[in-house]
């Protein structure tokens, strides 16, 4: 990889509250299919030079379309993937190279909430067993029955009736299942929770219940969230900061109101305009309001210049020659675009 030091400014040190999570120049590379049957695998750059800080008790909304690397970033922070470059700091400690027993202890502090509550719960385990499993795995209890009190407490925390403790997942609705998933993630009293599209599979009216529950839990337990989403509609309510990913690059990061009210990067603007608004005055008149970028993810990229330029209507000569740095602009906006601040 290129020298990272000149591609981003070092983060401003905040003396009062050091960030709970810091990611510096994180890169993940996968082996893609090669040429023909026996060709060497082609490298796929899933994440390139991701840098951000997340303060304790705050929520970072991570938004991107499919293939943008948002779930990969979540898994990389959890250390479930080999990083090809960059560093991850948790509570000031470098956890990039942690492995074995130390990694296991670390995962007590960083937990995951999955997207699909229908497939992420074992249908043959009762609620008690599901929620007690992490406690058992980490040796905090020696038997399931010993965990019963803690499980009851967790069920109360996520507003599920205590008498459901001996039921199987099939008797729950989607929203209730997601509550079980949240209780399971909370069992180890983690500091940081990575929620990978926790409400995408839920109905609209239930979505709000789960998002509100997550907010309550954050206030009560001082949790920090990385909230992954595929569009900008839900994240506004829960996030303090929002980062936009496009093809493995962070293209913009700012406070949530800044993202919605003064978006800087052209891709952020496209994402905002693509969200259908529940307001009949925003009628589609057949292509006129359509976002300009036709296939944002599918166009090939030859490796030089800005990755977004093939879909960008502002792209000029500079964009073709050199990739824009992910740099801090006015108003605390971080953006990777040559045109930001030039209007």
């Amino acid at each position, binding site marked *: 990889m290129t020298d990272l030091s000149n591609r981003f400014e070092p983060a401003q040190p905040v003396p009062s509250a050091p960030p709970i999570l810091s990611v510096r120049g994180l890169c993940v590379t996968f082996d893609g299919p090669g040429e023909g049957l026996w060709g060497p695998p082609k490298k796929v750059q899933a994440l390139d030079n991701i840098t951000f800080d997340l303060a304790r008790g705050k929520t970072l909304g991570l938004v991107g*379309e*499919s293939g943008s690397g948002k779930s990969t970033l979540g898994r990389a922070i959890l250390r479930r993937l080999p990083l090809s470059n960059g560093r991850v700091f948790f509570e000031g400690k470098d956890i990039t190279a942690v492995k074995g027993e130390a990694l296991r202890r670390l995962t007590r502090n960083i937990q995951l909430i999955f997207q699909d509550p229908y497939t992420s719960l074992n249908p043959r385990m009762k609620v008690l067993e599901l929620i007690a499993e992490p406690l058992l795995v980490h040796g905090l209890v020696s038997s399931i029955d010993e965990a019963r009190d803690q499980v009851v407490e967790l069920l109360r925390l996520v507003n599920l009736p205590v008498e459901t403790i001996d039921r199987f997942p099939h008797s729950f*609705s*989607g*929203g*209730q299942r997601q509550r079980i998933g949240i209780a399971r993630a909370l069992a180890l009293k983690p500091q940081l929770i990575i929620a990978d599209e926790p409400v995408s599979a839920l*109905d*609209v*009216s*239930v*979505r*709000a*219940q789960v*998002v*509100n529950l997550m*907010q309550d839990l954050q206030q009560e337990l001082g949790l920090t969230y990385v909230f992954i989403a*595929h*569009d*900008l*509609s*839900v994240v*506004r*309510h829960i996030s303090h900061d929002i980062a936009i990913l496009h093809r493995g690059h962070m293209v913009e990061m700012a406070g949530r*109101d800044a993202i*919605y009210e003064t978006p800087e990067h052209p891709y952020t603007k*496209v*994402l*905002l*305009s*693509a*969200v*259908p*608004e*529940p*307001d*009949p005055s*925003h*009628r*589609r*008149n*057949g*292509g006129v*309001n*359509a*976002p300009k*970028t*036709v*296939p*944002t*993810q*599918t166009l090939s990229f030859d490796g030089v210049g800005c990755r977004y330029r093939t879909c960008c209507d502002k792209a000029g000569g500079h964009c073709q020659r050199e990739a824009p740095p992910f740099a801090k602009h006015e108003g605390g906006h971080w953006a990777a675009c040559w045109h930001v601040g030039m209007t």
Partner: protein
Amino acid sequence: MAYAQPTPILEVRDLHVEFDTMSGLVQGLRGVSFSVMPGETLALVGESGSGKSVTAQAVMGLIGLPGSIVSGDILWKGQSLLTPEGQKKAASLRGKSLSMVFQDPMTSLNPLMTIGAHLVEVLRRHMKLSKPQAFARGAELLEAVGITEPRRRMAQYPHEFSGGMRQRVMIALAIACEPDLLIADEPTTALDVTIQAQVLDLLADFQKSMGLSIVLITHDLGIVAGLCERVAVMYAGSIVEAGSAATVFEQAEHPYTQGLIRSTPRLDDRRDRLVSIEGAPPSLLHPPKGCAFQSRCPVASRQCDTKPARQVTPAGGSVSCWTPSLPAWADVAKTTEVHAR
């Protein structure tokens, strides 16, 4: 065709569908009535399990065992599709004048057939074209849905297409026989937002250029607002509120509709908390006797133990509620204001 009194292209009257499952009789639809006029776009909105897809399947004749249409009628241009003669007629309508776009573009195309073969099959079956004619028409259709290099693409297989492209192919297949009515069952749920916007624009385009009627089935009110003239909101197997999109969004009458609109996140909304409808929809195995929304309704009273009849609203819509137009969630809105920054 000139109508003295316009006949709806599709009319569904008091439709009841039941599924005889191992755990008992599930009442999938409990008296659904609506009509679609020529050139009109109707949205069927509801949560999963509310019966919106079952309605589409009933119209398309896709209700298979253990399900069956128990009572009610489906009329195509004034003629029943459920009588023995009607069923014969329906078989020739479906796929031609009446077509459907399914939710999941990943599984609705045959992986062993090329894209061209899909199109040629439909065109030869319904439009009685010769093979070369069908091939040429198929390429035109692909071009119409915005697929570049259609002739090369015809020879490719579904796995070579992205999700958005496959959904475009599904739309091309659905409009291949110049249908009068298109039923789109959650056509964009599996797609990214930017791709979703393109697919919706495509549907809006065809509606304008072909005078197509569309029944759009969705759970996303945002999509409804952008595309549809009329909205029918479904809850627990029946339609609780119907009306023009403008009136339903501006002044929803039914507490469920009001709650649904409020719990849909909006980009211009600075509040920290979303309004949520507590609880979950009732089981249709033992549906409640009275109003189905009763258990989640903030303004429910004793009269809700009896099922409310459908009544016409001042704005020309219809609603099934004892206390329509009562602002059901006003108190909730107030508490959230306090939370706001």
